[in-house]
């Protein structure tokens, strides 16, 4: 059995499937030991990435594949860390054009990229070879130190 904790999930470019991605990623991040508030923010960031693909990557399709990969980095027992990759086969865009808008300009829309960058430690966008985009997101936190005096603490 592989020791690597990873998940591969494929959904399609319909808004109703975003909740599936949210549920899977939340469960995975909780398993790694992230606290509730961080789990919620990671779930939001992944949702925004998926939503951006549905809207901009597949503007005219509801059957476009969206592949989500979650890989835990368990090399350091004092830290919880992961990488999430979201890929599609839709429209391509020059990564330098992917930027959050000025938040002082209060108007509907355009928050997704900003939210992803605020939540994750690192985010990179790249066009894939033939078609579609790849967004890679990483995040890590220090895990709480177990209380040696508490015999019931198995963290």
């Amino acid at each position, binding site marked *: 059995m592989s020791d690597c904790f990873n998940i591969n999930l494929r959904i399609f470019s319909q808004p109703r499937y975003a909740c599936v991605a949210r549920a899977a990623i939340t469960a995975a991040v909780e398993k790694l030991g992230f606290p509730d508030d961080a789990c919620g923010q990671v779930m*939001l960031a992944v949702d925004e990435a998926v939503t951006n693909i549905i809207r901009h990557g597949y503007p005219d399709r509801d059957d476009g594949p969206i592949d989500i990969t979650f890989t835990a980095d368990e090399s350091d027992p004092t830290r919880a860390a992961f990488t999430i990759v979201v890929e599609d086969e839709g429209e391509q865009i020059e990564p330098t054009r992917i930027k959050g808008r000025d938040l002082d300009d209060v108007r509907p829309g355009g928050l*997704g990229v900003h939210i992803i960058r605020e939540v994750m430690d690192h985010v990179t966008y790249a066009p894939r070879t033939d078609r579609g985009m790849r967004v890679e997101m990483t995040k890590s936190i220090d895990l709480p130190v177990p209380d040696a005096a508490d015999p019931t603490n198995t963290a």
Partner: protein
Amino acid sequence: MSPEAPIVSSPQPFDGGICLALNGEIDLSRSPELRNALLDAVKSKPDRLVLEMSGVTYMDSSGVATLVEALQKMNAHGGKLVLAGLQTKVKSIFQIAKLDTIFAIVDDIESAKTV
């Protein structure tokens, strides 16, 4: 597949405005429904529109966008939009987007009617 519960309750008028209760997860699949309900509510140009959001368990930027649009329409006629009862994780998106100082956000409906 069973139909989902409505995301917005029927409007509840009160002295000085209208209250709508929002429920469930508000993402790209359901924010159009919310948008339609909010546009209906602001059409009558109420003095105050209160959104009771304690039943909202999740909101993404598409949901927030509908609230921003409603806020702008309320502001256009001098009305006030107030968000009440946001769960902590829902409040988080407003903080990330720096909208927590743009919207009037209070803990409960009674505060929302007077703030």
